[in-house]
């Protein structure tokens, strides 16, 4: 079944032109196998001290969200490799350091893309960066989305708000290796229409074969003709084969708890569900202790977890 539910802002741009432009841009990107060898200390630049790299491009996405395109550091002369789901620690001189997930194409070694929401002192300072500015970077850290395991499966991505950022590299991968995967379903919830992320890309994705992109907002006025309701209300229209589906979720934990129940209702096995968690991450190598969730270190064992492995602590308050 070739379902193309459009996102709710189709009136903004003529879809066909966009999709063609998007496809053309995509073919230019270098392709490279995503099999990174296990990282060792020598590959991470550097463990405790940041490497300074140049900001190449600054893109404003929404009123409080922006994208930084950063020059990758050289790691012992080797290219900087980061996998979808992993994060870097971005440091701004004199301000501080924050963990930010990769939100660009992991297979493009020429640039590191991070989409950031300005919420705290460091992210607000990051939002004032200009091309040419230098920022510190440590990484990559953490676990990645199960792209190898997802081969031959339908892939259902559920994201809430900025939870879309760490899932965007997954979409890039799935589209680039389209034959390896079944249907691709992206369910995205945001707060209001003005918080919609990457609308043009989402539009273009929705026109790929066997790709379903459903977007909903939590609150809207009468000028919004798209869907209104929380992201879990999108499940009823999502088309996938539960037994051979990989579900990947990123967003506020309450949202993921309810999304996980929707997957459960549809019969997707627990070991085919993955969640990305947020905790206080400082050292990023499992030594400072802040990011613990049950017995897991979110920076080291996560941020991406297979659901059945953390199930025991999933609904425990203050775990």
């Amino acid at each position, binding site marked *: 079944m070739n379902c193309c539910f459009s996102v709710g802002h189709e009136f903004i741009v003529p879809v066909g032109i966009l999709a063609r432009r998007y496809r053309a841009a995509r073919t230019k990107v270098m392709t490279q196998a995503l099999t990174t060898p296990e990282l060792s200390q020598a590959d991470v630049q550097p463990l405790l001290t940041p490497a300074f790299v140049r900001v190449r491009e600054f893109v404003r996405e929404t009123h409080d969200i922006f994208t930084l395109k950063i020059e990758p550091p050289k790691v012992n002369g080797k290219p900087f490799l980061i996998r979808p789901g992993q994060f870097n620690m971005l440091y701004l001189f004199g301000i501080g350091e924050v963990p930010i997930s990769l939100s660009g194409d992991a297979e493009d070694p020429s640039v590191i893309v991070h989409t950031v929401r300005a919420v705290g002192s460091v992210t607000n300072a990051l939002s004032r960066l200009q091309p040419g500015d230098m920022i510190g970077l440590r990484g990559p850290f953490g676990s990645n989305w199960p792209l190898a395991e997802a081969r031959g499966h339908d892939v259902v991505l559920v994201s*809430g708000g900025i939870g879309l950022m760490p899932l965007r590299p997954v979409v890039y991968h799935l589209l680039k290796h389209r034959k390896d995967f079944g249907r691709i379903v992206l369910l995205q919830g*945001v*707060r209001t229409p003005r918080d919609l992320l990457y609308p043009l890309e989402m539009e273009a994705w929705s026109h790929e074969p066997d790709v379903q992109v459903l977007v909903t907002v*939590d*609150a809207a006025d*009468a000028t919004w003709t798209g869907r*209104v309701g929380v992201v879990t209300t999108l499940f009823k229209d999502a088309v996938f084969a539960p037994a051979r589906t990989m579900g990947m979720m990123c967003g506020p934990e309450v*949202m993921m708890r309810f999304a996980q129940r929707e997957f459960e209702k549809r019969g997707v096995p627990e070991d085919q569900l993955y969640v990305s968690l947020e905790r206080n991450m400082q050292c990023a190598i499992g030594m400072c202790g802040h990011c613990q969730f049950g017995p897991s270190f979110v920076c080291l064992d996560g941020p991406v977890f297979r659901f059945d492995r953390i199930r025991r602590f999933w609904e425990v308050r203050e775990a």
Partner: protein
Amino acid sequence: MIEQGVQASTEQGILELFSSHAFLRGLSEQHRLMLASTARHFQAVPGEHLLREGDEARSFYLIQTGRAAIQIHRPGLGTVRLQTIGPGEIIGWSWIVPPYRWQFDAVAVTTVTGLALDAASLREKCTQDHELGYQLLKELLTVVSGRLSATRLQVLDLYK
């Protein structure tokens, strides 16, 4: 709201829709037939009201195509869209809750088609046949519970 032409509103068309609509899937053939006798086709064009806050609740809507929004108007502050409803879903349950008046507005966002069941005869049939009433209420409760959960999540304003 436009009543559809004679051809489309045949009993056959209604029965076909009845057997395929998600809301009625749990009902027996016999109960479906009983409900079908209260149904008529409807179509609402964008901007058209399906329900209007304060009006008598005369219909129970089964949506077949299109998207409608449950919304409320705040004097001086404009209209807020609370939730959108699409194919396979239902709109309106005030017809079974006294005093049978709509609590919110429902407006077609795109052209909406489906079946409208007559509220008075529905109530009468449910009173006469408690088994039908129970089955219908059970389906309605599933919908209401889902919408309540969704609303509770909305109240959390998760992405603030």
